[in-house]
């Protein structure tokens, strides 16, 4: 048989590895800055593009798509070539994948701090960037499938299956969740509204965890752990069961992010059932990874690579035990909206993804540069400080989550809340935020030590070159099954059929959940008193989206006595029918805002945005001074309303024609309301006089951003507000 010679493309792997290191440090630095903003809320006072709400999506996107994403590409490009005994299909495509992905990351790093966001978690990027992501992903998939078609290895190793499932599912998720109608080049509205938007978003959000942070990394685990331990995977049979059951079940579990919300009960229950089932394949995979080290545990003592991998797989096991537990309604009732969830995701990100990446880097770099690791003690130091960092990050967040959630729910014997002031519960967990910041710092220090170690290793090594390999060409044996060939053996050498089967497996769950919610009218009972936002409120809502308020404030009062007592009537599905996108949120660093409308005076809101600590002592909300200064650009209001009409929001032609006048009238009324406060009158008039005397342009209050924001906040939840809250504003619930 003809032996062919070819070269493995190592340069593309090297590029992705360098990008991983760079973006890893950036993503973690932003995370650390955010952690310190809990303690010093006005750390970046007055700088809009460094405010918490805008940086939070930057942190999550940088870590998920830049750090973990680039590492995934590096690992996939390295292992795929070797498992298929072929160079990647096209160098041009590999490079397009690399540079396109970096361009997207840079675009995200610019647009997110500027406030261009769709507000849907982990899918915040606006539509032009979404299109770019789709294009780059298609090229990645094409390149991958092309490589499979020119492979020299007949059968496809299980890691390749995991990569395939990743490629297909991420494409499906990204496209369906990002469907939006553009208003302008950098503004769009989700085509789904309210409950439906929430369901699609968390079908996406959950499966971004499943198919971006999990399946590709399981593929990497199935390749790199055997490599590092120098023995085959514990059970290849188990890996087949692991793969199919995991992708089949994972896709259903999304609704566990929406327990006790306004999502129909049947969908919630379905999500719970599948989430509990998920523990079986997840732990199957974990056990398979750990037992690969059977008889090689002595190596773990000396090899930093294996140390990292063992903690990574253990972290996977912990996170995937916790996930099903958190999906139980009684546990979710406590954990949801609290720091417990932050602990959970960081066990996944820091231990499972982070440590597997570190292990992979320590294994790959010396091999690719044909040298030894510059310093093993340094790698061991990284391991220990990283592990302690994870513990010091996660444990305080568990304590914080429990403590705060239980305080939220505690009643006096007379039926009133013990901690009626939300801030009391925040104050209680401040020491935990301190510890978290220290844990995060330790983890970052470890990463920086690795960075130095890697740079030193690369410098001492030889120049990176593409690796020569040889293998016999694959004889054509035709697509049909050979005599005596079993069906699955045939399937294991048929990439296209395997891809189609995996696609079917992941589509079943999505279709069964999403289509009925979109189509069946009875899922969202209409409420006649719910009307569309006025143009000014709509503009205010877009400011709420721009500032990332949803990162800390939910708009979802769950049907618990403690929440109804604190916030007001629980949320109804019919209240959100005009919410493109939904803004339910997933974390309550501050109180829920669903029923905040009418609770405080307009002046209170103005003062609160200017200096949150002045109205709410001990608040950890940063000030939003620029909202109070900035002139509000409302020029797109009519276009926005027209897009909303296309999406089914019943604005009449009259409403649209009168948008300008309506905005002006509502804004003028709010300005008038603000005059109730003598302090406001004094400083506002002073400012006006100053501007006149110095010949500066003066922006009237009614034309500023804050007025639209107040209009929106005062509208929130008032459509079905049952009892008017007459309590004094200073209670800060």
């Amino acid at each position, binding site marked *: 048989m003809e032996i062919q*010679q070819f070269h*493995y493309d190592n340069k593309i792997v090297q590029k992705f590895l360098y990008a991983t290191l760079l973006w890893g440090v950036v993503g973690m630095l932003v995370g650390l800055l955010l952690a310190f903003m809990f303690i010093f809320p006005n750390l970046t006072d007055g700088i809009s593009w460094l405010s918490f709400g805008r940086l939070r999506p930057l942190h999550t996107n940088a870590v998920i798509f830049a750090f973990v994403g680039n590492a995934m590409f590096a690992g996939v490009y390295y*292992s795929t070539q*070797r*498992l298929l*005994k072929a160079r990647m299909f096209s160098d041009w495509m590999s490079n397009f994948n690399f540079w396109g992905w970096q361009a997207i990351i840079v675009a995200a790093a610019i647009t997110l701090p500027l406030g261009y966001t769709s507000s849907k978690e982990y899918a915040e990027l606006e539509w032009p960037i979404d299109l770019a992501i789709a294009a780059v992903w298609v090229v990645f998939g094409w390149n991958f499938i092309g490589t499979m078609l020119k492979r020299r*290895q007949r*059968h496809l*190793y*299980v*890691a390749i299956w995991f990569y395939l499932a990743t490629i297909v599912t991420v494409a499906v998720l990204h496209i369906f969740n990002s469907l939006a109608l553009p208003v302008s080049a950098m503004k769009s509205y989700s085509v789904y509204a309210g409950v439906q938007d929430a369901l699609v978003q968390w079908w996406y959000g959950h499966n971004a965890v499943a198919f971006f942070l999990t399946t590709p990394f399981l593929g990497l685990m*199935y*390749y790199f752990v*055997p*490599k590092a331990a*120098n*023995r*085959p*995977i514990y059970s*290849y*049979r188990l890996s*087949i*069961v692991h793969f*199919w*059951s995991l992708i*089949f079940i994972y896709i259903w579990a999304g609704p566990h992010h929406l327990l006790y919300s306004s999502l129909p*009960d*049947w969908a919630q*229950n379905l999500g719970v059932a599948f989430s509990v089932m998920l523990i079986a394949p997840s732990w199957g995979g974990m056990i398979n990874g750990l037992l690969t080290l059977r008889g090689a545990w002595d190596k773990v003592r000396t090899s930093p690579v294996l140390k990292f991998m063992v903690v990574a797989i253990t972290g996977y096991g912990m996170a995937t035990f916790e996930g099903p537990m958190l999906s139980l*309604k009684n546990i979710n009732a406590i954990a949801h909206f609290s720091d417990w969830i932050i602990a959970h995701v960081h066990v996944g990100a820091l231990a499972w993804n982070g440590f597997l990446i570190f292990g992979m880097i320590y294994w790959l770099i010396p091999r690719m540069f*044909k040298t030894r690791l510059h310093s093993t003690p340094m790698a061991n130091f990284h391991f220990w400080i990283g592990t302690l960092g994870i513990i010091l990050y996660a444990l305080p967040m568990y304590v914080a989550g429990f403590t705060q959630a239980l305080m939220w729910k505690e009643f006096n014997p007379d039926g009133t809340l013990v901690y009626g002031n939300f801030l009391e519960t925040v104050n209680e967990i401040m020491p935990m935020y301190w510890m978290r910041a220290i844990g995060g710092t330790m983890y970052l220090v470890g990463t920086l030590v690795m960075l130095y170690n890697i740079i030193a290793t690369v410098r001492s090594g030889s120049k990176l*070159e593409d*690796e*020569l*390999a*040889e*293998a016999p060409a694959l004889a054509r044996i035709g697509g049909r099954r050979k005599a005596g060939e*079993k069906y*699955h*053996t045939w399937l*294991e050498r048929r990439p296209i059929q395997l891809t189609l089967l995996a696609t079917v497996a992941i589509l*079943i769950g999505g279709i069964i959940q999403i289509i009925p919610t979109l189509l069946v009218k009875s899922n969202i009972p209409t409420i006649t008193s719910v009307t569309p936002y006025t143009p000014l409120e709509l503009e205010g809502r877009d400011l709420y989206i721009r500032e990332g308020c949803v990162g800390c404030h939910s708009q979802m009062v769950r049907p618990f006595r403690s929440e109804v007592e604190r916030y007001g009537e629980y949320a109804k599905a019919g209240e959100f029918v005009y919410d493109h996108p939904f803004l339910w949120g997933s974390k309550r660093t501050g109180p829920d805002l669903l029923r905040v409308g009418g609770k405080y005076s307009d002046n209170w809101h103005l003062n609160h945005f200017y200096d949150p600590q002045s109205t709410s002592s001990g608040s950890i909300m940063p000030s939003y001074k620029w909202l109070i200064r900035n002139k509000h650009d409302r020029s797109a209001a009519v276009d926005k309303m027209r897009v909303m009409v296309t999406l089914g929001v019943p604005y009449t032609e009259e409403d649209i024609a009168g948008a300008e006048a309506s905005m002006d009238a509502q804004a003028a009324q709010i300005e008038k309301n603000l005059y109730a406060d003598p302090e406001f009158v004094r400083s506002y008039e002073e400012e006006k006089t100053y501007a006149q005397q110095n010949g500066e342009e003066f922006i009237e209050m009614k034309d500023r951003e804050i007025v639209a924001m107040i209009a929106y906040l005062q509208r929130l939840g008032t459509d079905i507000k049952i009892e008017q809250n007459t309590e004094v504003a200073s209670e800060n619930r």
Partner: protein
Amino acid sequence: MKIVKQHMESIEGIATYPMISLLIFFVFFTLLFWWVFTTSKERIKEMEEMPLDDQHQKPFDQ
């Protein structure tokens, strides 16, 4: 389990759901386990050795 029952009863045509889901799951896992257990030992050995096969990679100076 009253809470589960109460939620379940509120769904129209609930009776068909268990049948459909049982069927989907039964078929899915039966096929999966059939796949796994009918695979021969040699095939498994060949598959699991794939990542460790470095024979085809040549050092640069050859």
